[in-house]
């Protein structure tokens, strides 16, 4: 059963997965493009860190994009077919959902593994100045967890009805609008920022997306 689900999911989202895998492989190589001098001085080392930090923003963004792609593509055809396919299967709902979740996760392993390979290749390609080290394994593990989390969130949102997704988007948009209105009224009350802070710091769900995503660091 899992193989069938995996196959159908691959058919639906194969192109997107291939694009994501390609981007994941190329990103670490692009990151180290400035680290190729044969005689690195401390100026190169000090200049390299901000350059790497600039690229580091791309990793959580890519993880989010891949999670969004995997999470939404897993359910697109079910929604389109009004869940008739799922209803024809002799499975309880939770079992079906877990099969879909597992199939999506298996497909998303491809970009994660390719990012790992790309990071290891990039680490070998770059001439790393003294005092700096490459961290391909830590980066890949963190990327994998970020993809897992993003995928789980978007999968959960997409598994519900359009109304559920609407509620989620509505609450977020409502908070934004409320904050703008508060600012326009002259008050300096911060509504969104404290919520955001809670979400991106431990034990908030998005903490893993923050901080420095450095392939090469001290």
């Amino acid at each position, binding site marked *: 059963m899992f193989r069938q689900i995996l196959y159908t999911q691959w058919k639906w989202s194969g192109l997107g997965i291939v694009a994501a895998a390609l981007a994941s492989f190329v990103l670490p190589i692009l990151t180290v493009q400035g680290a190729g001098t044969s005689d690195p001085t401390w100026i190169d080392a000090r200049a390299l860190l901000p350059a790497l930090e600039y690229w580091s923003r791309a990793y959580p963004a890519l993880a989010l994009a891949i999670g969004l792609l995997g999470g939404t593509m897993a359910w697109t055809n079910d929604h389109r077919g009004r869940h008739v396919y799922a209803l024809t299967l002799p499975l309880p709902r939770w079992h079906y959902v877990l099969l879909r979740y597992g199939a999506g996760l298996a497909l998303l392993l491809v970009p994660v593994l390719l990012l790992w390979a790309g990071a290891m290749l990039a680490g070998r390609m770059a001439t790393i100045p003294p005092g700096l080290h490459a961290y391909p394994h830590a980066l890949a593990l963190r990327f994998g967890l970020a993809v897992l989390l993003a995928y789980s969130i978007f999968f959960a949102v997409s598994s519900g*009805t359009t109304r559920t997704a609407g509620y989620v988007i509505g609450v977020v948009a409502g908070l934004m609008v409320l904050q703008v209105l508060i600012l326009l009224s002259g008050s300096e009350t911060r509504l969104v920022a404290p919520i955001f802070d809670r979400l991106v710091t431990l034990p908030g769900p998005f903490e*893993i997306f923050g901080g420095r995503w450095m392939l090469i660091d001290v």
Partner: protein
Amino acid sequence: MCSAHVHRRLAGAIVLALLCAPIVVAPARAQDTAEYRELVERLAERAQTLARTESSTVRGAERGRLDTLTVGRLTLLFPPQRRALVETVGRTAWDSLAAAFGADTTALQRHVITLGGPGGFRIPEWTGGQATGPRADLEFAVGVVLGTVRDTEARRFHGDPWFRDAVRVMFLAEPRLQDEAVYEELATKPWRVVRACYDGDLAECDSALAVSSDAATTALRYTPEERRRIVGREREVITSLRSAAGTAQCVEARVDSACVDVMRRFYLTEQPLSPLARATLMRTAFTLGGDGSYARLLASDEPEFLARLAAVAGVTPETLLAEWHRQILAARPKSMMLTRISGWIAFLWAAAFAVAATRSSRWRRD
């Protein structure tokens, strides 16, 4: 109407202060011109400070939206809705100032510090590396304390850019951010002396943190190959100053004495570690020394600056350097490392969302 009245008062205060100058100076007729000029300058500066304080207070009062708070000897003027934040910032600022400057902070009692300045309250938090908002005001407070210390020793110190910059830099960012930046510096600079310091050779740390800005001493802190590199890096500038022969001897013929000579003549006095690194050493000394550290630093008659700092801290120079080294190595940026707790939290959240997905129903209407 109110504004015109205020301006008249300000102008009056300045004119009055300047008019009073000759009266105050009168008993000191025997003083020479330099002393006379210094006294007038001080009075003018005092008048300007009074005007500035008065001006910011009046601006706040005109807006009618400011409140005051006294923390230690700091008097802060701020928008009332930021009271909680100002209390936090004020407490942090006062603790830092009191620990470092001790009794010298009495100078602050004459000043009202407006958090935010004329542009209003800007950055509500301390952000790394930029002096804005409350931190810029804290820098002003440090300037007030430094500017008020009068004894000869303090003046000699204040004229020393190393000391002045280190004291000011100490307050420009959170200690943690400063330590992280110094860790990066220690880990990435390829100079032998810095690498040895990173590896724990405290004698080399002493050399890398050198207080002296003397070009002759600086040149000798590097290896011959490093000297060649430094001169080579500045070659374009030096050559344009018609010293091509010495530079060529150093860079191409690898004559070390030529490198030392060029470094001395062109003041290539870049120290192995930056002023920020030295500021962290001074902070370590002040932290260990506690209350009155600054006064003890000024009073110390040790010939070497490191020994002065050690005396302030109440430990030996080796212990001070060891504590600094431990503190910097402990500040290794950890954001890259995936901590176990961070990994588990992400995994648990992912599992929670997956479980939430299984609770969905295909029977519900879209």
